[in-house]
């Protein structure tokens, strides 16, 4: 339960991080909040030769608003995601989802960039990044590129980050105020990783018909999944109870759930139930009601 030995590096700028990355031999890990990495080090599931601590990089702890988007620095901690009034106004779903990550003390330390780079298939932030069409800003000594969240997550704990690249921040398109949203997490104990999590976005036209519908779930397979194709036929309709259950049926029919420690049949039922709950909440918000 103690980490194996490593050399510790604490750069004070992103440029120094690239310098470390090009200079160091052996296995190198970047340490942000450490709420996933340090347990893996304590269990010796990871045994890096070098640890580069990013916590001194004040330049990655930022919020930047534009008309269309909000850019959030990689070192912004979950607690700030959950409680910052600017984030709550521009991205209420992100704030709500971040409040459900782990526990109070974990959220004080865990970071946005760290969670995305870690890419746990059941984690909230990868799911929310995919649902909200975020772009992940990845920088190396050669320059910066933007990777859409849908392409960033490749498999379990595997991302599109290249060796030598660091997540700088994430750009989220701002949610229009009329956009309804819902987010449901089911876990064995409060604060555990989700068995299944479902996020929903929905907009209504002046007629009360659905003009936009987006749904994503985590805990199904190796990465969070969007259900754009499966739900196309449900757009343009007036939502009611029957519509909600047709939606859940369509999502479940499109789910390929791998058999794991927790039976697929149970997880499929969770997808069905949570889809309806998340979408019902989104519907209520889109109609201008606040959810109890």
């Amino acid at each position: 339960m103690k980490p194996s030995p490593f050399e510790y590096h604490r750069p004070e700028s992103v440029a120094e991080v690239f310098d470390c990355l090009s200079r160091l031999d052996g296995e190198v890990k970047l340490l942000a909040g450490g709420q996933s990495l340090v347990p893996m080090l304590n269990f010796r599931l990871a045994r890096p030769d070098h640890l580069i601590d990013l916590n001194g990089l004040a330049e990655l702890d930022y919020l930047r608003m534009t008309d269309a988007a909000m850019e959030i620095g990689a070192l912004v901690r979950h607690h700030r995601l959950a409680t910052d009034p600017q984030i709550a106004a521009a991205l209420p779903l992100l704030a709500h989802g971040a409040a459900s990550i782990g526990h109070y003390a974990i959220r004080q330390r865990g970071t946005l960039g760290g969670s995305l780079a870690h890419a746990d298939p059941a984690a909230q932030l990868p799911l929310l990044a995919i649902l909200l069409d975020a772009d992940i800003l990845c920088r190396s000594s050669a320059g910066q590129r933007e990777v859409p969240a849908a392409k960033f997550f490749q498999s379990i704990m595997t991302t599109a980050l290249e060796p030598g690249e660091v997540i700088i921040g994430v750009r989220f398109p701002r949610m229009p105020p009329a956009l309804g949203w819902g987010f449901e997490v089911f876990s064995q104990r409060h604060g555990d990783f989700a068995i299944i999590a479902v996020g929903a976005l929905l907009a209504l036209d002046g007629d009360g018909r659905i003009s936009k519908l987006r749904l994503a779930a985590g805990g199904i397979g190796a990465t969070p999944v969007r259900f754009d194709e499966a739900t196309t036929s449900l757009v343009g309709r007036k939502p009611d109870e029957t519509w909600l259950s047709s939606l859940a049926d369509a999502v479940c029919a499109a789910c390929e759930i791998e058999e794991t420690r927790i039976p697929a049949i149970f997880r499929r039922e969770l997808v069905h139930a949570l889809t309806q709950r998340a979408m019902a909440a989104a519907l209520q918000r889109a109609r201008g009601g606040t959810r109890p």
Partner: protein
Amino acid sequence: MSKRTIRLTVNGQEFTATVEPRRLLSDVLREDLGLTGTHVGCEHGVCGACTVLVDGNPTRACLTFAVQMEGQAITTVEAVAADGRYSALQQAMHEEHALQCGFCTPGIIMTFEAYLKENADPSEAEIREVLSGNLCRCTGYQNIVAAVRKAAAVKRGERA
């Protein structure tokens, strides 16, 4: 993997320790500085027994390396009582019988000393949400919730 000499600020006092980078803050507090009030349970961030404050924010000492903490102010349970008097939270925990074996208690106190600064009047549901990060295997949660509610009321000046 060479040792380094680090300077730590714990409970307002400066300490120097010569440690390997892999040494967890929880171990340095207990073994190098002799501050054994911080308890170590699971060593992977689940149980919450080792929770301390880093610049006022509750933090798992078992998920933090001591070398990371230079320049930050660490507060442990030893500093919660001032001038030999319990804090409002400690007093309420005592009065409400909110501890049995006491192993989880330091982590719970550090968590809620911070939380009650952020939320002076938490609901029972909010208290339980925060408390979910600290495991009590005597399962005395009812009394812990009651103690936090009482401490919050005392701090707000609504009861003695």
